């Protein structure tokens, strides 16, 4: 099988069996990419994940781009990425088409009213999990609180917030002499 086609299919398979993305994808990547095909080592995967967390975009997408690029250059990176998003694209389009037609049914409305309560809790849990790595001292604690205030009560775009917070991190480390 041509390498590019195989890249697309392997990443499409990974994209179609992982629920939740990110870390949920790691065991499947280890099996398909490291053990079955030797496209990367476990150490490389760990590096990709670490870098994927501090570069823009979805971690699963970033990791696919890394592995594709390593195997077949820029075009490999693009093909692997398209592979990993392909199943989402098909499945979600089908669901969206279905929901557009059935959204007004009472049973669908009631189900989603219940589901939205659960989503609150899922978001709360995601924040609690993130807090451990994000709020590590007084400054990051203050940043966390201030960002909540800014985001809830002003029209400042999240992009601006993220950029300013990155600069604050850089300046703080500089003033403490860590850089």
């Amino acid at each position, binding site marked *: 099988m041509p390498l590019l086609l195989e890249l697309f299919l392997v990443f499409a398979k990974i994209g179609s069996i*992982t*629920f*939740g*993305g*990110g870390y949920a*994808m790691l065991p499947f990547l280890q099996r398909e990419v490291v053990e079955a095909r030797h496209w990367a080592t476990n150490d490389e995967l760990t*590096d*990709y994940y670490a*870098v*994927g*967390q*501090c*570069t*823009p*975009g*979805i*971690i*699963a997408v970033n990791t696919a781009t890394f592995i594709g690029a390593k195997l077949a250059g820029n075009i490999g990176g693009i093909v692997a990425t398209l592979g*990993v*998003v392909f199943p989402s*694209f098909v*499945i*979600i389009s089908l669901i969206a088409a279905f*929901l557009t037609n059935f959204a007004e049914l009472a*049973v669908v409305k*009631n*189900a*989603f*009213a*219940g*589901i*939205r*309560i*659960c*989503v*609150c*809790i*899922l*978001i*709360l849990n*995601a924040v609690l999990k*993130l*807090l451990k790595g*994000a709020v590590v001292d007084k400054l*990051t*604690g203050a*940043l*966390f609180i*201030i*960002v909540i205030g800014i*985001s809830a009560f002003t029209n400042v775009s999240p*992009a601006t917030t*993220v950029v300013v*917070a*990155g*600069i604050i*991190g*850089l300046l*703080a480390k500089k003033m403490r002499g860590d*850089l």
Partner: protein
Amino acid sequence: MPLLFNLYWEFFKVGLFAIGGGMATFPFLAKLAVKSGWYTQQELINMIAISESTPGPIGVNMSTYVGFHTAGVAGALISTLGLVTPSIIVILIVAQFLKKFGESKYVKAVMYGLRAASAGLIAAAGLTVAWMVLLNQEALHAQDFSHALNFKALCVAVIIFFLTKKYKKVHPIVFLGLAAVVGVLGHFAV
């Protein structure tokens, strides 16, 4: 055509600035709902549930759903491509000097500030969701504060929270399914 171009551009920005994966795209999409009017906050919350219950990265699922909802299959395609374009560009550049990037003090310093902000953004968006779901919007409008709290929803929320803490290994789809059943049986849509 302008709509598709706008979709691409807006999701390009989400892909560029939402750092850290998973829920990181959510606050961006919440602000986008207000700015563009392409979908409501309530529809966005439904989308989160669907994304959590289907395979694939949540950010990708959410952008596909929003794109489809706004402009059909073409919209879904364009939004997803917009979301992944910045990743592809940045990663192809970073891949040249992977080790150095991962260990750079400067990258770590930026991430030190950025992680706290990202958590704050998600928390703020979460508060908006809680406000919509746990408070009785009609009573709030009528300034009837004694009926402002949606007790039924609050009880379900507390129970689900403890269940997710007790059964940490259980996939969220189980809790979402449970909440759907409760919603149907209890006629939660008022």
